[in-house]
């Protein structure tokens, strides 16, 4: 019995557990489930005979030991400290059949003979149930129904098994041969062989002229031009603008080519990767985008993030719909924009009165993060702050962790932290049938190929009719592991070491992908809200390049680290190619 659940192998029972199960019927831990105590609702699960019980070792009377175990067979409690003395082990050795015990403070099963944790699906399900439903739930049937609704209920409808295709090296077919001949420019030939040498700038680096406060657009375009899966898609001719225009022009019958932002992107990629280093004016692109986002069409400075979102929407809308594929953004099958950027967020809302949790899944193309409201790490109480202020260096574990600096990881931790919604934000609880105060926790159900993090630096207050910019520095890593922010990790930390019934045994292809990401583009903003300037830093072949409208210069990574990040783009590590340094003859 070692089936894969959510990518994790279900552990094999030890021989003592097998014997115990065989002797005590199909549900050997049923009685133990009545002793599960959770307080407050949604907090940690403990095992207590009565709610006010103070567990004490039956042999030495100690209640202050760190590990106390209750024997499941006879309910006697013993301490367990294998180096000093383990009265739990003594007990298990003295009476056969008494090897299985439960940690009274963690509600985790333990085999005293093996000295290791063991798992029982029903017991773990009961603990999860107790932690999600009020401990005063009377019958088990009502409890299990609520469990099914709350935890295993809402499956994202768009997660399907991805078909695996055998690898075959690409060969152009006859149609592709012709189009290659007509509209393609050789990237390298004998005369230009020197372009490949390591002293030259990498392919695809080309300045973009500012057309009148359009640095917001240029900065995002530079990032997109070097988003690996997006670049590969367009350079791989997956959206041929000639073919697309021809097909849709014939349908529309109009002289003007039909609006398609993907076609404009294709043209942009062709121009930027052509090898021509003179700055390019993305006028056609700007015009097309204005037609799509008419409300933003002006020569005023716009928000780069708003442009990014609107652009992705534009590509999604205008790309030809394939009826066979799912249209929901979460699967990424609808268009290249979502295929690259769309992930799925999970939101758990728990009623603080009865513990009922409702779970929803929403696709997202990026994650907007708040900066901390006040200076300093995550010190909540004033006493913690004052303790942090002296001798910080000596006390912090990590050498580069400065308790005062905001970090991207800190923002992500706060994003996935359980948050108590204020009394003015009561949400409707299905069980109580009335609005109650709730606890909300976000986590990532499915990671996108490219994670875009948007730092909320612009605060717009409609009440006070003013906006302000938050200049505080945010530290961001070059390599980022998203594992701690996944739904599986967040739930694991909520419930402890358990076998999880949630999500069933679904094999989601994204589980096979790693959770490690590499930074490849940073869009920065400098200046004020009304008079600011966007600059993009690109990481190519492990070198950093500053793209400021028409000017591209190579910069040291320290410049990038010190920059004021507004949007950070991370790509899955497996898709990030670190080219070797010496390519040509040298």
């Amino acid at each position, binding site marked *: 019995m070692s089936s894969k659940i959510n990518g994790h192998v279900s552990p094999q029972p030890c021989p003592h557990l097998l014997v115990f199960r065989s002797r005590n019927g199909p549900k050997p831990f049923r009685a133990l489930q009545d002793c599960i105590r959770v307080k407050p609702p949604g907090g940690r699960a403990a095992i207590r*005979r009565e709610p006010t019980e103070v567990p004490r070792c039956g042999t030495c*009377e100690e209640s202050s030991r760190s590990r106390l175990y209750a024997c499941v067979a*006879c309910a*006697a*409690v013993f301490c367990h400290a294998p180096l000093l003395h383990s009265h739990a082990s003594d007990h298990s050795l003295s009476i056969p059949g008494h090897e299985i015990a439960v940690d009274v403070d963690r509600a985790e099963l333990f085999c005293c003979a093996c000295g290791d944790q063991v798992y029982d699906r029903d017991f773990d399900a009961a603990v999860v149930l107790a932690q999600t439903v009020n401990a005063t739930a009377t019958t088990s049937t009502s409890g299990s129904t609520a469990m099914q609704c709350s935890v295993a209920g809402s499956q994202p409808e768009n997660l399907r098994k991805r078909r695996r295709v055998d690898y075959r090296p690409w060969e152009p077919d006859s149609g592709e041969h012709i189009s290659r001949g007509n509209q393609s420019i050789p990237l390298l030939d004998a005369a230009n062989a020197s372009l490949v040498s390591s002293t030259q700038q990498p392919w695809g680096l080309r300045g973009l002229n500012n057309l009148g406060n359009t640095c917001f657009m240029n900065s995002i375009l530079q990032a997109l031009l070097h988003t690996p899966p997006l670049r590969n898609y367009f350079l791989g001719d997956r959206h041929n603008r000639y073919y697309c225009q021809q097909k849709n022009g014939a349908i529309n019958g109009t002289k003007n080519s039909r609006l398609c932002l993907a076609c404009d992107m294709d043209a942009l990629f062709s121009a930027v990767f052509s090898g021509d280093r003179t700055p390019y004016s993305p006028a056609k692109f700007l015009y097309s985008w204005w037609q799509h986002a008419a409300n933003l069409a002006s020569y005023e400075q716009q928000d780069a993030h708003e442009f990014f979102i609107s652009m992705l929407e534009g590509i999604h809308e205008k790309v030809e719909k394939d009826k066979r594929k799912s249209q929901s953004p979460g699967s990424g099958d609808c268009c290249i924009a979502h295929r690259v950027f769309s992930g799925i967020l999970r939101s758990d809302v728990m009623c603080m009165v009865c513990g009922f949790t409702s779970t929803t899944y929403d696709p997202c193309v990026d994650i907007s993060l708040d900066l901390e409201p006040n200076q300093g790490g995550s010190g909540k109480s004033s006493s913690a702050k004052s*303790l942090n202020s002296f001798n910080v260096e000596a*006390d912090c574990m990590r050498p580069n*962790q400065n308790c005062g600096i905001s970090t991207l990881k800190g923002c992500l931790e706060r994003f996935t932290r359980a948050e108590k919604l204020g009394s003015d934000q009561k949400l409707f609880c299905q069980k109580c049938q009335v609005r109650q105060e709730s606890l909300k926790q976000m986590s990532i159900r499915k990671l996108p190929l490219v994670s875009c993090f948007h730092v909320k630096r612009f605060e717009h207050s409609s009440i006070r009719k003013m906006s302000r910019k938050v200049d505080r520095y945010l530290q961001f890593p070059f390599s980022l592991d998203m594992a701690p922010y996944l739904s599986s990790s967040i739930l694991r930390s909520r419930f402890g070491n358990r076998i999880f019934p949630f999500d069933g045994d679904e094999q989601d292809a994204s589980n096979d992908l790693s959770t490690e990401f590499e930074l490849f583009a940073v869009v920065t903003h400098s200046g004020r809200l009304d008079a600011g300037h966007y600059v993009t830093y690109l990481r190519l072949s492990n070198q950093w390049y500053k793209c400021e409208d028409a000017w591209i210069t190579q910069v040291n990574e320290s410049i990038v680290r010190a920059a004021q990040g507004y949007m950070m783009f991370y790509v899955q590590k497996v898709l990030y190619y670190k080219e070797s340094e010496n390519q040509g003859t040298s």
Partner: protein
Amino acid sequence: MSHSHKLVIKRSSMSRPPPPPPTTNKDQQHQNPSLQEINIKLIQSGEKERLKELLRERLLECGWIDEMKALCRAFTRKKGRNNVTVDDLVHVISPKGRASVPNSVKAELLQRIRAFLASTAD
């Protein structure tokens, strides 16, 4: 609730009161409560649980938990996933773990405990 189950409730091990601490005179007993007594007070008032949560938060913030996880992973990689038990891991990380708790965390918890005892002193 009757179960045809073999779970026998042994109340004796649950509610036996602690043996009185060895003391020479009454004043000593009153002024210096034993570790046992302090522990009972902390548990019964719920303060111990609160302190544990606070400790978890502080150890998470300063990276102690991550460091212990890394130690466990390194050990598991060396021994092989199927050759490691919970007891092994506890044995391996306990010395380093105890030694590397930041002084500020110890100080804060000690301060909290003292404040609690002072507030509940008879």
